[in-house]
């Protein structure tokens, strides 16, 4: 048999297999190391700190778990959040993340390794990313072979789409959820392939872990039934499918109901109905199979027809009836916004106000996935080629996830694993084809094609640069398998391998394609490293800017302000801010907040929005009613930090308008349709508390010069707003955080505006006695 390049001879098959497995282990180890290492940029560039917003709550909850134990955590009622409503934390969170860290913490302490809980939290995400790489490897191995698995593991290890949610310090549910997602899918595929109740149970257990860890578990809840349904419709019902699905659904659902936050949702909400329906359908189909084995085919067909129609109609009406009666909750708003991207903006501004819920911009696909994005369709095509049960799973996954990733930025995370898997399949097929040393025989005798499944493969032109597939009989064998087989055949001297008629001649074609592929991979690595270092490693608690000389300048206003609160205010002081900063205030300043990032109560958030967007005298009673001591606003106008409260202000207006349409109207905050904050700002805007707190004394900073708001690029009037009901308590170095203290009632019971005028020595207008007797005198 002709080969394109010489193969080593006299190597025993055992040696080859051992070397291959050693290389696999080393490769996996290196991939894990790379995955962890690239996520440490955040720690190296900044420090070991919890990032962003939600992680601060998770961290705080983990601290409670570590210090007070699991049962206290389970029953934790947090009186300092959502004041004065409080938050039943144990029943409103996914405890998987905290429990994981807590278990690690207890194990390390049992081993007398006194590791700080913060470091565990910071490094949890990188650690789990290594596990994700391994789970992806296992999953992809089921799709194709080891080499594709290794590629997929390498991709998922460093792809920015996943790194964005799992850098060190990004202590969020997604940190462990992607591993659980991939491992559940792997177990499901394994269970389906083997018809194994054991793997079905494993899948159920990891599904339970996933339910306990992330709200995105609904994705699994719908993916697996969808896969089962498609298999059913394709006529691929087997007892393997029945065993795998039944064991997964029964155990998984029962287990998931043990999570307090989920409770009875699996049997009562529309999102979970698909899984239940498919479970019922499988029982019916299995029963029908049983009946078919016992009755004649004519009878069976009649029976089947009647049964299918009646159960279908009954089931449909049952679900409609139950939904109508309120036994099954209808779809939630977040779900509707998945189908209609304008829905949230119209009806639930609080969902639309989260930047993560915006539709994805096209460049971010390239930013997050780089060249994988165009290998992805190729990989899906590869799956269509083989189209075994597991490939159908990947195809469905790819279709669903691409849609969702297009709708919401946040769901890019769900797309990333399948992109890595399919791209790895595509790239590994390419490499298989071009690394295969076997040269095609020149076809003289028009010998019939004898490799079994590949029937429709078009004839590959010589030296084609295009990506083409070479189907091999044993799909499980990849390039390595080919090498092994050719080595063995060379060593054994037996020419059992069939003579191929399609393939690549010579070395030059191979080298050209392989060098290209390698170049792409190298660029991918460079891109991933660059994106990770520059875009995704900022803790957003600490901001970085560049000095004129190129050195890094850290802006640490947030922590400065939070520590000020921590050290200078009463321990039970209540701080009001927009909900974005609730978790950070609770975590860093340890003070009571009105609203936070767990946006469960729209009215309470709208109340804060109303206070912010109303004039002082309207806002003051609201503040006093909620016992607010301090109000915190974020202002980026001095240094050009665009994520400040004035830019979010319209969302506050919209959300409160949803609750008080008579008092707050969005158009009032515009001047002829323009969002202005300078002297052309609308009167409502100039009067509202947010505007006043933001620009209070701002013009004075410029010492008579023209004050410029750098974020909105507008010139501020020289006479800024005045405050009567609040007083400035703290402003951070770069004016990013401004804290105001709410004044107490005047000791004389006067209106504070009057009291202030008196304090400044202004003459009071003479009042007249109330003419109570006038009617009598007349």
């Amino acid at each position, binding site marked *: 048999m002709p080969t394109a390049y010489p193969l080593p001879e006299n190597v025993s098959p055992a040696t080859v297999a051992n070397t291959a497995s050693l290389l696999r282990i080393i490769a996996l180890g290196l991939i894990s190391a790379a995955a962890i290492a690239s996520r440490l940029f955040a720690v190296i560039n900044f420090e070991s700190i919890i990032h962003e917003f939600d992680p601060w709550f998770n961290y705080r909850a983990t601290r409670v778990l570590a210090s007070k134990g699991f*049962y206290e955590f*389970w*029953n934790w*009622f947090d*009186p300092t959040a959502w*004041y*004065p*409503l*409080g938050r*039943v934390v*144990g*029943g409103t969170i996914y405890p998987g993340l905290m429990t994981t860290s807590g278990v690690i913490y207890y194990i390390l302490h049992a081993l007398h390794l006194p590791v700080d809980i913060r470091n565990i939290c910071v490094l949890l995400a990188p650690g789990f990313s290594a596990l994700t790489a391994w789970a992806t490897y296992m999953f992809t191995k089921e799709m194709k072979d080891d080499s594709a698995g290794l590629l997929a593991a390498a991709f998922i290890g460093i792809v920015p789409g996943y790194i964005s949610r799992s850098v060190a310090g990004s202590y969020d549910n997604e940190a462990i959820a992607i591993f659980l997602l991939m491992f559940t899918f792997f177990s499901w595929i394994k269970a389906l392939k083997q018809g194994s109740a054991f793997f079905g149970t494993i899948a159920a257990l990891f599904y339970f872990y996933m339910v306990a860890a992330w709200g995105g578990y609904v994705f699994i809840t719908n993916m697996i039934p969808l896969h089962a349904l498609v298999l059913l419709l394709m006529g691929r019902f087997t*007892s393997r499918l029945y065993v795998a699905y039944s064991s997964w659904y029964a155990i998984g659902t029962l287990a998931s109901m043990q999570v*307090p936050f989920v409770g009875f949702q699996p049997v009562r909400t529309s999102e979970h109905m698909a899984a239940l329906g498919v479970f019922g359908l499988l029982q019916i189909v299995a029963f029908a199979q049983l009946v078919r*084995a016992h009755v004649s085919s004519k009878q069976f067909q009649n029976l089947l027809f009647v049964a299918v129609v009646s159960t279908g109609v009954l089931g449909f009406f049952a679900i409609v009836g139950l939904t109508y009666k309120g036994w099954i909750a209808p779809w939630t708003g977040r779900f509707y916004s998945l189908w209609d991207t304008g829905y949230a903006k119209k009806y639930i501004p609080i969902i639309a106000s989260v930047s993560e819920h915006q539709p994805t911009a096209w460049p971010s696909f390239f930013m997050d996935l780089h060249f994988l994005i165009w290998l992805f369709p190729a990989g899906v095509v590869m799956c269509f080629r083989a189209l075994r049960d597991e490939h159908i799973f990947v195809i469905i996954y790819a279709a669903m996830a691409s849609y969702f990733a297009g709708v919401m930025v946040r769901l890019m995370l769900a797309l990333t694993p399948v992109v890595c898997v399919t791209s790895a399949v595509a790239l590994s097929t390419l490499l298989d084809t071009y690394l295969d040393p076997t040269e095609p025989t020149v076809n003289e005798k028009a010998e019939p094609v004898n490799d079994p499944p590949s029937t429709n493969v078009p004839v590959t032109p010589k030296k084609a640069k295009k990506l083409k597939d070479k189907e091999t009989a044993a799909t499980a064998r990849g390039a390595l398998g080919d090498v092994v087989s050719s080595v063995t055949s060379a060593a054994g001297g037996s020419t059992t391998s069939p003579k191929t008629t399609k393939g690549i001649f010579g070395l030059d074609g191979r080298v050209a394609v392989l060098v290209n592929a390698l170049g792409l991979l190298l660029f991918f690595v460079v891109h991933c490293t660059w994106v990770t270092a520059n875009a995704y490693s900022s803790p957003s608690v600490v901001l970085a800017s560049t000095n004129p000389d190129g050195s890094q300048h850290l802006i640490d206003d947030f922590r400065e302000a939070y520590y000020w609160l921590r050290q200078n205010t009463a321990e*039970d002081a209540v701080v009001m801010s927009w909900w974005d900063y609730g978790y950070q205030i609770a975590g860093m300043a340890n003070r009571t907040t009105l609203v936070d990032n767990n946006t469960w109560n729209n009215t309470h958030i709208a109340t804060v929005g109303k206070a912010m967007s109303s004039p002082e005298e309207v806002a003051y009673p609201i503040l006093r*009613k*909620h016992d607010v001591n301090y109000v915190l606003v974020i202002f980026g106008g001095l240094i050009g930090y665009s994520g400040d409260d004035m830019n979010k202000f319209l969302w506050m207006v919209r959300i409160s308008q949803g609750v008080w349409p008579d008092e707050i109207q969005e158009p009032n905050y515009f001047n002829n349709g323009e969002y202005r904050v300078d002297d052309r700002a609308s009167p409502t805007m100039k009067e509202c508390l947010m505007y006043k707190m933001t620009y209070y004394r701002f013009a004075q900073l410029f010492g008579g010069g023209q004050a410029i708001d750098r974020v909105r690029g507008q010139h501020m009037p020289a006479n800024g707003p005045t405050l009567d009901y609040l007083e400035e308590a703290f402003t951070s170095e770069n004016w990013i955080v401004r804290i105001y203290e709410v004044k107490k*009632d*005047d*000791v*004389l*019971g*006067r209106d504070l505006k009057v009291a202030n005028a*008196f*304090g400044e*020595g202004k*003459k*009071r207008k*003479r*009042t*007249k*006695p*109330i*003419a*109570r*007797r*006038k009617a009598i*005198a*007349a």
Partner: protein
Amino acid sequence: MRFPLSAFLSFLALANNVFAKSSTGDSVLVVIDSSLQKEDYSKFFGGLEERGYQLTFRGPKDTHPPVEQYGIPGFSHVILFTPETKFVVASRCERALSIVIPAYTFDITPQSLVGLLSEGTNLLVTLSTKQTPLSSLSAEFSLIPPPPGTPLVSHHPARSEPATVVPIPVPESPLLTPGTPPVWFSGVPHAFGNSPYLVPILRATSESFAADSFDDSGADTLVDASEKVGEGLWAGSQLGLVTGFQTLKNSRVVFAGGVEMFGDEYANKTLPDGAPSGNEKFVRDVTAWAFRETLALRIDNTTHHRVGEEGSPEKYTTNDQIIYTAHISAYDPETSSWKPYSGITDMQLEFTMLDPHIRIALPPVTGEPGKYQVQFRAPDRHGVFKFVVDWRRKGYSFLQTSTTVPVVPPRYDQYPRFLSAAWPYYAGAISTSIGFFLFSALWLAGDVEGKKKKGLKTE
């Protein structure tokens, strides 16, 4: 040497507190205008000293002793016998330009007086018919001074004194001794604004009015003017003469329409019917109230706990039975001490989260003086609640207390374990278990033939 001295001083302060007449201290600063003679008020000042007050006199232009130093008030009470002292430094600008020569030193301004009140100092302010800083200060207390130069005038009852010296009957009031004879008054009345913190002590008689002329010729024009201009009528018993005001910090201030009523002359003057006047008694009662001798209440402590338990828990569970207790005492000027007080019958307790979820009476416990107690069930609603007692009655010290306590849902093991309503499910689970067991037993113990058939089928 320093330490023993300061210790001695603090001992002195302590001793003073123990024997003080007032519940808040006995040092009094009397700012007296140079036009007034201290001797003319000997009965008043003597009475105060007799009651244990230490009086310090200074003129409005003096700088020593200061009313306030480094934000700490120098005296517990301040009496301003400066009804006609005119100028006050109103603004920095005026001070810089020296437009006016101040009659008050810098430390007495309307702003600083309000500052004293918020620090807990009590004030006694006397007004006159002239427009002074003090009369504009009274506007801050929701008192409405009449136009300048309009004293109270009354022709009833017929008497030899001029019409501006009026005998006023003393009304029934918790802060005045019952049966006080009418008092002589001469000065300016004021109308009331709508502040709920005003405590009218002495009102004008219904025949009296405020006018700038002493004969009756202007009376009708006054009525006409008030109708045309829409100004309220400066007449009748709606006008106040001596009015108290209690701030949210429980400090008290009294505005008296004239300084003469404190003097010896009016105290010795007999009423038109020949009886002695009640001035001496009246001004004593007024100062006793103003300096927080009488009607001074306080909440000593509040406790709350579950029924059948001791000590306040960190948090309550919904539907807990809670006992709330408050201990209230009143100041007894006779013994200069706080004594348990059970005289409040209309106090209420609120259990509040944004709105009161529970509002119930907090009655005194019979047999235990000063103790007020109530038992109630916590609402079936979790959240951060406050026990709020907010008792405000005219003349009395305000009683306000607020204790924050979270009410949490039951713990995971506090719910009932077995529900009778769930028996269908229990029955289902048990029957399925038994059925599975029986089926397995039958299956495993079944004959070999069945196994063969099954084996064939799966192939």
